[in-house]
């Protein structure tokens, strides 16, 4: 029994070291900007860079729009598929997995071909149009995660009976989704939202090829011509991503409880 536990711990520690050692090394390196002593100079340099604020702000805003559009598209879609067209579920699940197998590069070249300035819908003809296109691309990219988060949320409540209960009391479809379904899967939506945010903040390929001032291309740009700042930025983006993941965990505790007291 004890031997089993030893090997389990050994595998766990090796796995943990594989992730943690490079992280510690990166963090340690990010503190060595000042000769002979540790300092946060690299972080100060990053935060003092106006491009950091501009690109991070831009990506955060695009991330916010991505979440809003994603929720508006995915929540009603999952709701109606579960409620009225359950036979369509395998197909929808397959479609939502496509962004995982189609490289972002293929996606963005497809977009550029379809929506270039000489096409019928010239999204790339203006900055706003390109931003809309970028948002659409991110909604697609985050689809597998958002869909699964929302789908799991809806599985935990009896949407069929809740819908009927609301309907018989006079509610229409919009009122049902807005007042009953959405609040009951809010935690699941927020989980999907944080995953989406984490994806958007670090995304490079699409933003770079659409030539938008996003955080991902900024990270790569800094990495090519600075020494210590990229390490500091890696730690910052790591903290942001893991902060978003941590929020999912925290929010899980506030999920509405559905079972009755048994006493």
């Amino acid at each position, binding site marked *: 029994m004890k031997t089993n536990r030893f090997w389990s711990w050994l595998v766990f520690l090796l796995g943990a070291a594989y992730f943690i050692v490079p992280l510690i090394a990166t963090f340690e390196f990010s503190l060595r900007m000042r000769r002979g002593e540790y300092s946060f100079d690299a972080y100060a340099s990053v935060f003092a860079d106006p491009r950091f604020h501009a690109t991070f702000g831009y990506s955060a805003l695009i991330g916010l729009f991505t979440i809003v559009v994603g929720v508006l598209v995915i929540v009603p879609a999952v709701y109606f598929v579960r409620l009225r067209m359950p036979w369509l579920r395998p197909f929808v699940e397959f479609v939502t997995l496509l962004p995982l197998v189609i490289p972002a590069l293929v996606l963005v070249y497809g977009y550029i071909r379809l929506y270039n300035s000489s096409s019928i819908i010239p999204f790339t003809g203006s900055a706003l149009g390109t931003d809309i296109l970028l948002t659409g691309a991110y909604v697609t990219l985050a689809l597998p995660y958002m869909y699964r988060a929302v789908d799991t949320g809806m599985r935990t409540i*009896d949407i069929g009976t809740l819908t*009927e*209960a*609301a*309907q018989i*009391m006079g*509610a229409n479809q919009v009122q049902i989704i807005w007042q009953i379904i959405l609040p009951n899967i*809010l935690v699941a939506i927020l989980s999907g939202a944080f995953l989406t945010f984490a994806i958007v903040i670090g995304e490079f390929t699409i933003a770079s090829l659409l030539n938008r001032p996003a955080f991902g291309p900024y990270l790569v740009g800094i990495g090519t011509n600075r020494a210590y700042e990229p390490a500091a930025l890696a730690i910052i983006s790591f903290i942001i991503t893991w902060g978003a993941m941590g929020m999912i965990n925290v929010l899980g505790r506030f999920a509405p409880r559905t079972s*009755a*007291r048994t006493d």
Partner: protein
Amino acid sequence: MAAFLEVQNLTKSFGSNTVVKGVSFAFDKGEFISLLGPSGCGKTTILRMIAGFESVTAGTIQVEGQDITHLKPNQRQLGMVFQAYALFPNLNVGDNIGFGLKIAGMPAEQRRARVDEMLRLIGLPGYEKRYPYEMSGGQQQRVALARAIAPRPRMLLLDEPLSALDAKIRVSLREEIRAIQLDLGITTVFVTHDQEEALSISDRVVVMHAGNIEQLGAPHEIYNKPATRFVATFVGQLNSIEATILDPAARTVSIDGHIVTVPHLPADAAANVLTQLTLRPEVVAVGASEGNDVTLTGTIADVTFLGSVIRLRVSLGKNVISLDTFNDQRTVPPVRGEPVTISLASKNLLIL
């Protein structure tokens, strides 16, 4: 006077499977109606068609003379209580009860007053801030009842609302539901597979089987004068006794050698042919009893102690008859294997 709820030739098919087959009935305002039947008999489908959750294949549904057959559920002004409570987990008790009122656009002040009134009605005053998960199943179902009746619906639909509750709460809640229904005078359609529930609280019962109505009547009519063999066996306990017809004209039959005159025999009855008689357990007595004109002797095959009642199974030969006798604490209960004499009134022997 026109009926309050009128269902005509209601039919529902799922593909080639017809689950409700041209059902018709009419009920008056304020009646408590039960749709009773085994699983798959179509009772829930009828209720769901009345609510508007299932489309109607053929037939019409009218409430107060208005044809609601093709109206959406949210246009029918009906209230419904579900088996699984279906309280909104994100809303507290007050908001759950006030949901229909809010949708209808009732001002907050009036809404609060109505919620308070409903909470008093269901015996849960002061519970408005609680959430569903903080309450027991019985309390949740009372809240669901309050939520259904708060907007003053034209009719109340109850879809097996007691099935998920334990036995004791089930009895107390069904009495509470009936008391509230009588108090408000609201027409109520109650779906159940539990015959005791249906008989105890209904004005009229619709017994269903395989998509058809087997019998419609007051609880005592259903129990005492079952129209079909299905009704007789589904509602209450029933003895089935094999007998040989001796003389069709004299209506005499032989039950394990005992000659008995029965109230009626089928028109095509012939001598020396086997027939099945039916008999309720409670009309059979141990020993002689006033009004009983048939006496049979047999052996006690089994004794089941049920508290206030003792159920005996008496073997008469080929036939075994179940009968109920009160538990008299002054005497020793019957013992298996003992010889016993039982009596019954021949008028209670029926051929269905």
